[in-house]
């Protein structure tokens, strides 16, 4: 199957020049980007099949001898292309803070406790329907120094490859109803509200498992459409 990569969808992305997020000030390029034709170098990309992942990689609560503290959750959804077709067999990497809002990373100095039973890194590969599923704990909000009283809304980082260099994306999944959304310059860097809200997962009672874990659905749409779309029949 051959894919094309229209540029029309790219307006959903934030601009690197988003000064309310202060780390952009010295890092966002000041020169205009140069339009790149889509050559073989861009329309191909690394392939990571199921060999890259073992079953336990998608359950972040089983990485240590004991169970982590916090609210156990299921995070599941589908990876789709711009036509809504599943993207099967594609790798997803995730990472997150623990329930107290602390990352394992050595440079995270937030004075909240580390959890010896939680690292917060996972991997999964989508199935034939583009579906993935993680078990983890709900991450906590945490403070940062972007501005006075700055707090990140709870989020899980997602890294995806898709079929090519052009479909590669790193993003963050948020939780519904977070009161910190309106104060967060990273979330708000996406200027289109509908696009922004695509990063908010949906609580799903149907997938929630009784006596065990709440479930959140998060679908991800990657760049790429069928190069030879078939005309849908019109109703007369």
């Amino acid at each position: 199957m051959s894919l094309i990569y229209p540029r029309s969808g790219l307006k959903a992305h934030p601009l690197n020049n988003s000064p309310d997020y202060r780390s952009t000030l010295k890092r966002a390029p000041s020169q205009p980007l140069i339009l790149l034709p889509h050559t073989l170098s861009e329309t191909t990309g690394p392939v990571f099949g199921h060999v890259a992942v073992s079953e336990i990689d998608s359950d972040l609560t089983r990485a240590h001898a004991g169970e982590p503290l916090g609210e156990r959750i299921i995070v599941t959804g589908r990876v789709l292309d711009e036509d809504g077709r599943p993207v099967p067999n594609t790798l997803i990497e995730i990472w997150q803070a623990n329930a107290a809002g602390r990352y394992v990373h050595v440079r995270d100095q937030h004075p909240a406790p580390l959890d010896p039973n939680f690292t917060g890194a996972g991997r999964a590969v989508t199935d034939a329907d583009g579906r993935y599923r993680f078990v983890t704990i709900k991450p906590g909000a945490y403070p940062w120094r972007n501005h006075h009283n700055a707090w990140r809304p709870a989020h899980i980082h997602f890294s995806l490859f898709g079929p090519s260099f052009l479909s590669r994306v790193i993003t963050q999944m948020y939780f519904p109803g977070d009161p910190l959304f309106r104060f967060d310059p990273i979330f708000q860097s996406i200027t289109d509200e509908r696009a922004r809200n695509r990063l908010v997962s949906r609580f799903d009672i149907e997938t929630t498992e009784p006596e065990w874990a709440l479930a959140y659905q998060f679908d991800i749409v990657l760049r790429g459409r069928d190069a030879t779309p078939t005309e849908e029949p019109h109703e007369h």
Partner: protein
Amino acid sequence: MSTEKPDGLTPSQTIGPFFAYALTPRAYGGSELATEQVAGEGVAGERIRIEGTVLDGDGAPVGDAMIETWQADAEGRFHAAGNAGFTGFGRAETSAEGGFFIETIRPGALPGPNGTTQAPHLTVSVFARGLLIRLATRIYFDDEPGNAQDPVLALVPAERRGTLIAKRGAGGIFRFDIRLQGEDETVFFDA
């Protein structure tokens, strides 16, 4: 299966400062999906090492970036059969001093648009705190005569082309610094 057309792309967000224990987890004892080593032993081609530093608009090192590289093999092919040990994909975390390296084989020339030939190059993604969407760039090589006919370099103003060209120095190591902003800013692409 019914396919409902999605509302639009999932927007990008920054990689943030705390990705290493998941994406480049060597120091954390985690399993690495990909590393600075792109080609295993026995892969055909000229062995090369590319080194560089990622710098911000003040010229300060960016010590929390991730660099990913993607390339053809020595014959200019992607995903060629019978090329075991060659992934084509490299991933490196910058050091506290902003440094990174990639060890690979020199890629071959490959077809470009409209019957052109692309000079050997690596395709690069730069992710970092402060970047809300990855930066796309390319690494070319200063000893390739084909650069003069490369259709992508031709799109770049001549005075900025040099930012895309790694320069061979002592010990045969190619040098490629990435300047995110300001003087001699690296050319980044709208892919």
